[in-house]
Structures are given as C-alpha cells and as structure tokens.
C-alpha cells in the first residue's frame, strides 16, 4: 500500500529574535524525540535513495532515519558515525539545501526531509545519553602526521586511527578544531559540541600537539622524515582584503580577525575574557557567504546596526539559506548590487563607506551572473564606522613558504589527485588547503578519501 505523503516539515522551534540578538546562544532549539520521530516518519525510504548521492561522505541517510522512526536512536547514531566523524557539527553547519536535502524526492512535491536537523538530533541524543562509538583498534606500527586540526584533519585522523595507525595532530593555535573553533560562532555551533567531538579523537588515542606550527617550529622536511605519511589539513586561514583605499584605518577588520576575537578568544565576554572587541554603531560587512553572515550576526549581537554589502543579489548569495534567513529575520540590512570602492576617514578611523552600484551581466566562471559596476553611480553610506571584509580566505603562506617542494597554484592552493595525494610521496592534503574555502562536510569527505589512500600507501610501503 502506498504510504501517505506528508508534504510539510515538522517545524523547527527557534529562540525568539529578541532573545537571540542579545546572546551567542544557538538559534534552533532542536527536535524533541516526538518531533524527530514525526519528521523521520515522513521519509519515503526510497529504494534508490538519491539523498545519499547528495552527501559528500555518503551517509546512509534513509538508514539512520529509519532507526529514528523505530525509536532506536543509538543505532541511528552508529550509522551516522560510520561515515561522519562529527555528526553533531555537520548536522548544524552543512548546506543541506544544496546537498542531501536538494536530492530528497519529497522536495519535488513539498518540503524535503529535514535531514540536517535529524542528524543533529541523533548526535545530541547520543551525547546526552553518553552513547559512544568505541571501535576496537588493532595498533599498527606506522605513524601518520596530520597537520592542522580542522574538519579535514579530524576526519582523516579518525579513520586512520580506527585502522590502527599512530596519529599525531599538529595545531598552530592553542585550541584544536580549526575553523570549528576560530571561525564558526557559538550561535551556530556551540563550543561544548566541538569540545565533545574533539574528545572523541582523544579517546581514540590521537595525540594532539598544540601551539606547533609546521614550517616555523618544526620543519615540514623533519616531519616527513619522522612519520610514515603526512596529511595536510592546513586550511585557508589567511585573510583577503579588497585592496581599496582606507584599509589601513582603525575600524577595518578582516572577518577572520573579528571572528577569531569573538570565537577563539571569546571577546564577546570581555572583560571577563581578556581579549577586547570593539563594535561600531553601523557595521558594514562586505561579502555574503557564511563567514559574512557569521560576522554580521556577531556584530549585531554586540549591539551594532549591521548592513551586508554585496555586489550581487540575495539569490546569488553563497551562504546557507538558514543563515541568510536568520540574518534577515534578526534585522540585518541586505544591500544588493553595491561594491565598496573606498573607505572614508575621520581622525584616522572609518567614517563612511563609498560604494558603486552594480548590475548583473553574463554568467562568469562560477556560473553566477558577473557583477558590472555602473559608472558614475558611486555614493557613500555615511554613518558606517566599522567595516568587516568577508571576501574569502587564502591558504596561509606561513606553511607554504617553507614547503616549496609542494605543488600549488598561484593562490597557494595545493594540487592533489583524486586520492588527495600531492606531488610528494606519502603526502596527502584535503579541506580548504586544496579548495581555498569550501564546506565542513566536503573537508570531511576529502579527509576520508585521503585516509583510505594513506592506508593503501602504507600497506604497500
């Protein structure tokens, strides 16, 4: 008998706008058990599930959803953990609407299954109920060095450790987690979740070497000679600036600086925490990706009026739809089709942002319409007193400059083959280091591919 199709999602309860714009607490409240079961019951359990194809790590999505329906949350968790090193994080930060949920058959007739929120539900349930994935590990003698401790590094480390390799992770900062730690704000990804996911690595026996910059503190060549294989999850941590006049002024931030202050150093709790943060009366955030949304919503929570300044339109915004919607709901102004040309100053501080109006032309290489400046249309947003540039990031040259033997393109993006292998024997790479900036889940997928390839390499070594 055909299943009756329920076209409407079980709504996600969220914190009220009034409450959330003053705090860095998570916005969605998460499904209750009943809500999760109700939402999971909508799944058609397609015989050929397309959602799995949409997932960069190919989670058995119908499988874990079915376990929710059956009220077997622990089994659902083990299914998730099989392919995803940190489901509590990816359930929250993946752009599901362009991945698994986009492929959901239900989306053609109504709302796609809320896969992300179900994933987060299962992971949160397991955490609260102390259900852990404790694989049996048979130790192997070979050692692998993982440079970096963000998503790609984490997923590679987990897989390699499960295979029995001795894994050492080198992190430049004083806290592990990479972008999960310094980049994504608490209102999207609470830090107790990040800490919990990292604790899992410790439990598996991964050795963390914090405060250690490969290239500067220990040479890449030394690491290569001391370990049987190396994975580079060095990320794309270096900020990009537009290169317009006025960037030397006080009040101009890279999104990286602003978010590192807020997230890694918890400066939103200044003076309880020692790192200060300043926020203007009117903050202009340049760009419209997830990082721009994170910076904009953080500035809003610190008390500013915030405008997103974007050279295309909302429809071309690369941000996750949930983040864009949250930003708009919270009262962030979205200025479309404008591009900054100059930052004005008063007493060496930002005092107005001059922009030029844009129009959309033919699609460019990214497939999105190319923004074209309209000559003579410049105007100044007068009351802007702080500018945050969220234009994407580049790989950090601190490492690259000291590893000239690695092939990279002109932007410093490492070149790898389909197995994530670099041009060097035994050296693999993944995550933002090979893409210049993508998603957490894509990084997790690349970490897994690399782990598999490293295993093959070491077996034959």
């Amino acid at each position: 008998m055909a299943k009756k199709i329920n076209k409407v999602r079980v709504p996600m309860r969220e914190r009220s706008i009034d409450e959330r714009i003053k705090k860095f607490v998570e916005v969605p409240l998460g499904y209750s058990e009943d809500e999760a079961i109700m939402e999971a019951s909508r799944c058609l359990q397609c015989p050929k599930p397309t959602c799995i194809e949409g997932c960069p790590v190919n989670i058995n999505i119908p499988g874990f959803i079915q376990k929710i329906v059956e009220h077997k949350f622990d089994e659902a968790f083990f299914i998730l953990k099989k392919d995803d090193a940190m489901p509590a994080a990816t359930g929250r930060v993946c752009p599901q609407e362009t991945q698994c949920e986009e492929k959901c058959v239900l989306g053609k007739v109504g709302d796609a299954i809320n896969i992300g929120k179900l994933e987060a539900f299962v992971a949160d349930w397991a955490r609260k109920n102390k259900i852990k994935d404790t694989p049996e590990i048979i130790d192997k003698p070979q050692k692998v060095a993982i440079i970096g401790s963000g998503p790609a590094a984490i997923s590679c480390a987990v897989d390699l450790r499960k295979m029995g390799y001795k894994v050492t992770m080198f992190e430049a900062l004083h806290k592990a987690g990479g972008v999960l730690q310094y980049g994504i704000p608490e209102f999207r990804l609470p830090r107790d979740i990040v800490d919990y996911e990292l604790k899992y690595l410790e439990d598996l026996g991964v050795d963390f070497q914090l405060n250690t910059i490969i290239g500067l503190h220990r040479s890449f060549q030394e690491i290569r000679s001391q370990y049987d294989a190396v994975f580079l999850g060095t990320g794309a941590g270096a900020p990009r600036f537009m290169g317009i006049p006025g960037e030397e002024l006080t009040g101009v931030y890279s999104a990286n600086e602003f978010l590192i202050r807020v997230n890694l150093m918890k400066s939103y709790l200044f003076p309880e925490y020692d790192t200060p943060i300043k926020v203007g009366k009117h903050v202009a955030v340049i760009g419209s990706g997830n990082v721009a949304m994170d910076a904009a919503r953080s500035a809003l929570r610190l008390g500013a009026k915030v405008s997103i300044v974007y050279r295309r339109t909302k429809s071309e915004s690369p941000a996750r739809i949930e983040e864009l919607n949250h930003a708009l709901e919270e009262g962030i102004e979205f200025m479309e089709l404008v591009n900054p040309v100059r930052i004005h100053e008063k007493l060496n501080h930002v005092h107005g942002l001059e922009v030029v109006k844009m129009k959309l032309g033919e699609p460019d290489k990214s497939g999105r319409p190319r923004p074209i400046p309209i000559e003579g249309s410049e105007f100044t947003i007068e009351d802007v007193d702080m500018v945050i540039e969220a234009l994407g990031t580049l790989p950090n040259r601190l490492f690259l400059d000291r590893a000239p033997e690695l092939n990279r393109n002109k932007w410093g993006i490492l070149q790898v083959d389909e197995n994530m292998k670099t041009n060097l024997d035994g050296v693999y790479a993944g995550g933002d280091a090979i893409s210049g900036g993508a998603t957490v889940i894509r990084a997790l997928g690349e970490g897994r591919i690399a782990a598999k390839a490293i295993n093959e390499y070491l077996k034959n070594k």
Partner: protein
Amino acid sequence: MAHEIIHNEPLNYQDYLIKIRAPEVVKRIKPGQFVVMLLHEKGERIPMSVRRTEGDAVVMYIRKVGKTTSALIDKPVGDTILHVIGPQGTPLEIKKYGTVVVATDSVCGHAWSYSAAKALKDAGNFVIDIQSFADKEETYPEWALNKDACNEHHLTTKDGSAGEKGHYINLIKNWLENGKKIDLVLAGGELIKLKRLERITKKFNVPTWVEAHQLMIDATGMCGVCRVFVDGEMKLTCIDGPFFDAHKLDFDSMINRYSTYANEEKLSLQLYKKQRGE
C-alpha cells in the same frame, strides 16, 4: 603544558626580569623572533620580546602596562602560565654589515636588542649599542644593560641624570653629521621616535631596520590585525616581521592602528587592580 616562572625580579619601578621555562621555544628561537603568551584560559594572546635563553627558560623584560603584563609580574616564582608559544616571526638576518648601531628606548627593545647585538657582534660587526631611558630612576642596573653584548655601549637619559643626556636619536644624528660611517641601524621602541630616526638615517642613506609594534591575536598570519604597509604592500608583522625596512614602512598608519584598543586595555587594568584591592 604549563610553563613555570623560575625568576621574577624588578629592574626598576615598572620593569621586571622574568624567566619562564619554555624548552620548545628555547630549542629554536633566533634573534629577532618573539613569543606569544597566554596566561590562563580566559587570557589574551600577547606577543613578547625575548632577551636571551638560559637553560630551558626564556629570559624576558616585562613592563607593567596592562592587565596581562601586570598579572604576569604579580605571579610569584614557582607559579605557572598556560602557554608560551613560539618562536614567532622572521629572524633578523645576522651577517657582517660593518658598523651596526643597535638602539632602543623601550622595555621590549631592551629585551630583544641584547640577543640581536650579541649575534651581530659574534658575526664580526662592530656593534654600538644605545639604550635610552627617561631618567636615572628608570635606568636598569648595570648588569641588566647590554654592555657585554656589544663593542661600544651608550646609556642615555632624557634629563641627563644617568649616562649621556639625550636620546639615541641625538647620538645617531650627531655621529652621522660628523661623518661617522654607520652601515646599519637596528632600532625599536617608541614608534614616534622610530619615525623621527628614519627621517635622519634616510638623509644619510643609512640602511635602517625597525621593530614594528603592532596588535596581534593569533600571531600566525590568520587575522590580519598586525598589518602594516611596506612600500605600499600589505605585510603582516607576525609572520613577515617584526622587523621591517624603515625607509619603506608607513609609520603613520602603524602608529594609528596600534592604539585601537587603548580604552579597553585601560578598563581591563582598572578591573584587575580593583579585584586585587590595589
């Protein structure tokens, strides 16, 4: 992981000599590089100059200026701090230049200048070291100066109450005007003085490197807060610096950016003092 303080002694009414165990840093640090310290979980990451190493400890000169430096100085010997990270930054190029003047007028300058002067001397340079203080009261005891690190040492005070009267700028200017041959000036300290120094050495075409003083957070090239402009090009003090060619450096924007958080730093210090009942 924690780093033990093994020595803590005043050099004058505001500056302290502190030795902290940091074996990983000691193994690798070179003249011109610095460390980043984080006192505790809620602390800030602050860059600090290193004077020299001793055993497995870094030897530092630290002034009570803000909350973090005060809190560090207030720690007794035997106490620990959470992280000492480094070495960070690009080392100075140590080679034979000829006659090198190493000049400074600040606590961090008095720190790094020691190992820089010593390394330059060991590399066969004739090193003239100038240490400038406000007055006798601020001047360090003899043993804490750079005398053993150079070929010729000058102590100056603004009011002449100790050593020669004046500032390192006056000495360098006099020497150059009197035809003294100087092959390199290496200076650090108060930024406004460095800017004045640059104008003088430029007139006489003397290569000059200065320590850029800038705010930092991660000090790994990630945040960009320490950006300075060298020949119009954006450079990061934490990884490209801290030393830059003074004749190419934009001093005005550097000086402006350095004081971004002055009010917050003041507030932090006030709260810290209040908490300690000071």
